[in-house]
């Protein structure tokens, strides 16, 4: 390790301390049927990035962000032919403040990006309906969701 490297706790201590709540979070953002795959992917992403972290603070919040990003990427890569499975179940099982974490996640983005993300991931609309709500073509709706997801991912990777 270099001299300036922060004293990071053993990765598995984080997994054992926060794993249960991260699984609950994965259920909220990815749906129960995808939660475990998403969380597994999130842990591996986190492990890859872990030695490069510049400080050892807010590690729990960081793991929440990595899990959310993994859920979004999993959703995007899933085949479109699975209409039910494809829809993320944000807030569906939540007993408090449904979508609150999602709002916090997208808060840094401009409203022009937040609205397509809400329509897609919170309201579970398909692109025809998103287009109707945004007053644009389905193709443009898809483009706006895609751009917003990319912006979100870049912001959280930074």
């Amino acid at each position, binding site marked *: 390790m270099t001299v300036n490297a922060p004293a990071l706790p*053993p990765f*598995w*201590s984080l997994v054992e301390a926060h794993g*249960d709540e991260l*699984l609950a979070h994965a259920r909220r953002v990815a749906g129960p049927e995808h939660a475990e795959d998403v969380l*597994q992917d999130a842990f*591996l992403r986190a492990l890859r990035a872990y030695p490069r972290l510049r400080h050892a603070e807010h590690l729990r919040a960081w793991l929440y962000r990595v899990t959310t990003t993994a859920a979004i990427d999993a959703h995007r890569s899933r085949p479109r032919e699975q209409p039910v499975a494809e829809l993320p179940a944000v807030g569906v099982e939540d007993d408090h403040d449904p979508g609150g974490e999602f709002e916090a996640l997208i808060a840094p983005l401009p409203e022009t990006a937040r609205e397509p993300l809400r329509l897609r991931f919170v309201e579970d609309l398909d692109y025809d309906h998103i287009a109707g709500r945004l007053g644009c073509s389905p193709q443009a709706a898809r483009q706006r969701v895609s751009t917003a997801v990319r912006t979100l991912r870049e912001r959280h990777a930074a």
Partner: protein
Amino acid sequence: MTPLPDTLLEAVASAAVREGLADAIFTRLKTPIGRLLVVQGPNGIARIGFEEEAEDALLAGVAAELGPRVVASDRELAATRDTLSAYLEGEGDTLELPVDLRFVHAPFRREVLETLHDTVRRGEVVTYGTLAERSGRPRAFRAAATACARNPVPLVVPCHRVVPTGGGIGNYGGGAARKRALLELEGVL
């Protein structure tokens, strides 16, 4: 809140090992001499802790020495677990496991532990003086005793087989009672 399934944790750990993402792998093992925490480093067993040792501190030390990507896996360490269990239950004759002494920074202490690992078999004991002599410094029996007292990999490097010249079984990092139990297991007492 539903607890995280063990299968998920094992899958993460195995994938991490496969991708070369794990700086160290650890496992918790129940044995007749209590729960052990066993840590595998790049070249072999790097740390073994008895149950009295605080796990947080032990793993923090592992992160500092080997890197922070510390993962747990019973599956990846299955062979090590089997070897240790068989030995401690009296079924295995030898405890042949690769050892990684990178926690030992002082050159002479490392020499002492390597000598101990390589030359003192099950059923034998040596004195601290003999061990110092075999390690190349006959008068350094106190340094040899310190090396044993701070042995990061008890059992695998058999510091329980080192006894005082004046008789008795002497001290042990894991407690004298455990040293006695191990020597009884090995048929010395």
